[in-house]
Protein backbone atom coordinates (compact mmCIF):
# COMPACT_ATOMS: atom_id res chain seq x y z
CA UNK A 1 0.00 0.00 0.00
CA UNK A 2 2.76 2.41 0.96
CA UNK A 3 4.80 1.47 -2.10
CA UNK A 4 1.85 2.01 -4.39
CA UNK A 5 1.22 5.44 -2.85
CA UNK A 6 4.88 6.30 -3.39
CA UNK A 7 4.59 5.49 -7.10
CA UNK A 8 1.47 7.66 -7.39
CA UNK A 9 3.27 10.54 -5.66
CA UNK A 10 6.18 10.33 -8.09
CA UNK A 11 3.78 10.29 -11.07
CA UNK A 12 2.07 13.42 -9.76
CA UNK A 13 5.40 15.22 -9.27
CA UNK A 14 6.38 14.17 -12.80
CA UNK A 15 3.16 15.69 -14.17
CA UNK A 16 3.97 19.00 -12.46
CA UNK A 17 7.48 18.96 -13.90
CA UNK A 18 6.09 18.42 -17.41
CA UNK A 19 3.82 21.40 -16.75
CA UNK A 20 6.96 23.47 -16.20
CA UNK A 21 7.88 22.70 -19.82
CA UNK A 22 4.99 24.89 -20.95
CA UNK A 23 6.13 27.69 -18.63
CA UNK A 24 9.69 27.65 -19.91
CA UNK A 25 9.06 26.92 -23.57
CA UNK A 26 5.68 28.59 -24.30
CA UNK A 27 5.79 30.71 -27.45
CA UNK A 28 3.63 33.57 -26.12
CA UNK A 29 2.97 35.17 -22.74
CA UNK A 30 -0.55 33.67 -22.24
CA UNK A 31 0.88 30.18 -22.73
CA UNK A 32 3.21 30.65 -19.80
CA UNK A 33 0.32 31.91 -17.69
CA UNK A 34 -1.76 28.82 -18.50
CA UNK A 35 1.15 26.69 -17.36
CA UNK A 36 1.47 28.62 -14.10
CA UNK A 37 -2.27 28.35 -13.39
CA UNK A 38 -2.35 24.58 -13.92
CA UNK A 39 0.82 24.14 -11.85
CA UNK A 40 -0.88 25.89 -8.94
CA UNK A 41 -3.77 23.43 -9.04
CA UNK A 42 -1.52 20.36 -9.32
CA UNK A 43 0.38 21.26 -6.14
CA UNK A 44 -2.81 20.67 -4.12
CA UNK A 45 -2.78 17.05 -5.30
CA UNK A 46 0.82 16.63 -4.15
CA UNK A 47 -0.03 18.05 -0.71
CA UNK A 48 -3.04 15.73 -0.37
CA UNK A 49 -1.02 12.60 -1.17
CA UNK A 50 1.78 13.59 1.24
CA UNK A 51 -0.83 14.15 3.97
CA UNK A 52 -2.07 10.59 3.52
CA UNK A 53 1.46 9.20 3.63
CA UNK A 54 2.48 10.97 6.82
CA UNK A 55 -0.98 10.87 8.51
CA UNK A 56 -0.64 14.57 9.44
CA UNK A 57 -3.55 16.93 8.72
CA UNK A 58 -1.64 20.22 8.74
CA UNK A 59 -0.12 19.62 5.29
CA UNK A 60 -3.61 20.18 3.87
CA UNK A 61 -3.43 23.75 5.27
CA UNK A 62 -0.49 24.45 2.99
CA UNK A 63 -2.47 23.16 0.01
CA UNK A 64 -5.48 25.40 0.69
CA UNK A 65 -3.26 28.46 1.21
CA UNK A 66 -1.45 27.66 -2.02
CA UNK A 67 -4.66 27.43 -4.08
CA UNK A 68 -5.95 30.75 -2.67
CA UNK A 69 -2.74 32.62 -3.46
CA UNK A 70 -2.52 30.99 -6.90
CA UNK A 71 -6.09 32.11 -7.66
CA UNK A 72 -5.35 35.72 -6.74
CA UNK A 73 -2.16 35.62 -8.80
CA UNK A 74 -4.02 34.27 -11.82
CA UNK A 75 -6.62 37.03 -11.59
CA UNK A 76 -3.90 39.67 -11.37
CA UNK A 77 -2.10 38.29 -14.41
CA UNK A 78 -5.38 38.16 -16.34
CA UNK A 79 -6.03 41.77 -15.40
CA UNK A 80 -2.59 42.65 -16.74
CA UNK A 81 -3.28 40.76 -19.98
CA UNK A 82 -6.51 42.67 -20.55
CA UNK A 83 -4.38 45.77 -20.76
CA UNK A 84 -6.77 48.23 -19.17
CA UNK A 85 -6.49 50.35 -16.06
CA UNK A 86 -8.25 49.48 -12.82
CA UNK A 87 -11.35 51.52 -13.43
CA UNK A 88 -12.14 50.63 -17.03
Amino acid sequence: MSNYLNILLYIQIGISVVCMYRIIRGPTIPDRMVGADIFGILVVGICAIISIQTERSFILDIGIAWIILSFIGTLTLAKYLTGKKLNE
Partner: protein
Amino acid sequence: MISLIFITIGILFNLLGCIGIIRLPDTYNRLQAATKCVTLGCCSILLGVVFHFGFSDAGTKVLVAIPILFFASTVGAHALIRGTYHFGIKLGNKSVKDDYKDALK
Protein backbone atom coordinates in the same frame (compact mmCIF):
# COMPACT_ATOMS: atom_id res chain seq x y z
CA MET B 1 -8.79 0.84 -0.21
CA ILE B 2 -11.57 2.95 -1.70
CA SER B 3 -9.40 6.03 -1.31
CA LEU B 4 -6.66 4.43 -3.42
CA ILE B 5 -9.17 3.90 -6.26
CA PHE B 6 -10.20 7.56 -6.18
CA ILE B 7 -6.59 8.76 -6.13
CA THR B 8 -5.67 6.52 -9.06
CA ILE B 9 -8.59 7.86 -11.11
CA GLY B 10 -7.55 11.41 -10.26
CA ILE B 11 -3.96 10.90 -11.32
CA LEU B 12 -5.14 9.33 -14.58
CA PHE B 13 -7.17 12.48 -15.36
CA ASN B 14 -4.22 14.69 -14.40
CA LEU B 15 -2.05 12.75 -16.84
CA LEU B 16 -4.60 13.31 -19.62
CA GLY B 17 -4.67 17.04 -18.92
CA CYS B 18 -0.90 17.12 -19.00
CA ILE B 19 -0.79 15.39 -22.39
CA GLY B 20 -3.35 17.91 -23.60
CA ILE B 21 -1.29 20.85 -22.45
CA ILE B 22 1.68 19.56 -24.45
CA ARG B 23 -0.04 18.33 -27.62
CA LEU B 24 -2.81 20.76 -28.52
CA PRO B 25 -1.88 23.50 -30.99
CA ASP B 26 -3.43 26.68 -29.61
CA THR B 27 -3.65 28.61 -26.32
CA TYR B 28 -7.44 28.39 -26.15
CA ASN B 29 -7.52 24.64 -26.75
CA ARG B 30 -4.75 24.03 -24.24
CA LEU B 31 -6.78 25.87 -21.63
CA GLN B 32 -9.83 23.74 -22.52
CA ALA B 33 -8.07 20.44 -21.92
CA ALA B 34 -6.06 21.53 -18.93
CA THR B 35 -8.83 23.15 -16.87
CA LYS B 36 -11.38 20.36 -17.10
CA CYS B 37 -9.06 17.40 -16.60
CA VAL B 38 -6.92 18.90 -13.86
CA THR B 39 -9.88 20.25 -11.85
CA LEU B 40 -11.73 16.94 -11.85
CA GLY B 41 -8.49 15.07 -11.13
CA CYS B 42 -7.61 17.15 -8.09
CA CYS B 43 -11.20 17.03 -6.79
CA SER B 44 -11.03 13.24 -7.08
CA ILE B 45 -7.74 13.11 -5.15
CA LEU B 46 -9.26 15.26 -2.40
CA LEU B 47 -12.31 12.94 -2.26
CA GLY B 48 -9.90 10.06 -1.77
CA VAL B 49 -8.40 11.92 1.19
CA VAL B 50 -11.91 12.36 2.65
CA PHE B 51 -12.54 8.62 2.46
CA HIS B 52 -9.17 7.88 4.03
CA PHE B 53 -9.54 10.16 7.05
CA GLY B 54 -13.27 9.75 7.63
CA PHE B 55 -15.27 12.34 9.56
CA SER B 56 -12.44 14.00 11.47
CA ASP B 57 -10.62 17.34 11.41
CA ALA B 58 -8.74 16.54 8.21
CA GLY B 59 -11.89 15.22 6.51
CA THR B 60 -13.98 18.33 7.10
CA LYS B 61 -11.05 20.54 6.10
CA VAL B 62 -10.90 18.80 2.74
CA LEU B 63 -14.69 19.14 2.33
CA VAL B 64 -14.17 22.90 2.72
CA ALA B 65 -11.34 22.85 0.21
CA ILE B 66 -13.33 21.29 -2.64
CA PRO B 67 -15.68 24.28 -3.39
CA ILE B 68 -12.76 26.71 -3.13
CA LEU B 69 -10.78 24.62 -5.63
CA PHE B 70 -13.76 24.42 -8.00
CA PHE B 71 -14.53 28.15 -8.01
CA ALA B 72 -10.85 29.12 -8.18
CA SER B 73 -10.06 26.99 -11.20
CA THR B 74 -13.17 27.83 -13.25
CA VAL B 75 -13.02 31.57 -12.61
CA GLY B 76 -9.28 31.57 -13.25
CA ALA B 77 -9.80 29.87 -16.61
CA HIS B 78 -12.54 32.34 -17.54
CA ALA B 79 -10.39 35.37 -16.66
CA LEU B 80 -7.36 33.94 -18.48
CA ILE B 81 -9.24 33.19 -21.70
CA ARG B 82 -10.78 36.66 -21.75
CA GLY B 83 -7.39 38.25 -21.11
CA THR B 84 -5.84 36.18 -23.87
CA TYR B 85 -8.43 37.41 -26.36
CA HIS B 86 -7.94 41.04 -25.36
CA PHE B 87 -4.16 40.64 -25.50
CA GLY B 88 -4.43 40.06 -29.24
CA ILE B 89 -3.73 36.34 -29.68
CA LYS B 90 -5.65 35.17 -32.77
CA LEU B 91 -7.72 32.02 -32.80
CA GLY B 92 -5.94 29.06 -34.38
CA ASN B 93 -6.03 28.46 -38.12
CA LYS B 94 -8.40 25.49 -37.77
CA SER B 95 -11.16 27.63 -36.25
CA VAL B 96 -14.37 28.22 -38.13
CA LYS B 97 -16.37 30.89 -36.33
CA ASP B 98 -15.84 34.03 -34.21
CA ASP B 99 -18.87 35.86 -32.86
CA TYR B 100 -17.00 37.70 -30.13
CA LYS B 101 -15.20 39.97 -32.62
CA ASP B 102 -18.48 41.68 -33.56
CA ALA B 103 -19.48 42.21 -29.96
CA LEU B 104 -16.37 44.19 -29.08
CA LYS B 105 -17.03 46.89 -31.67
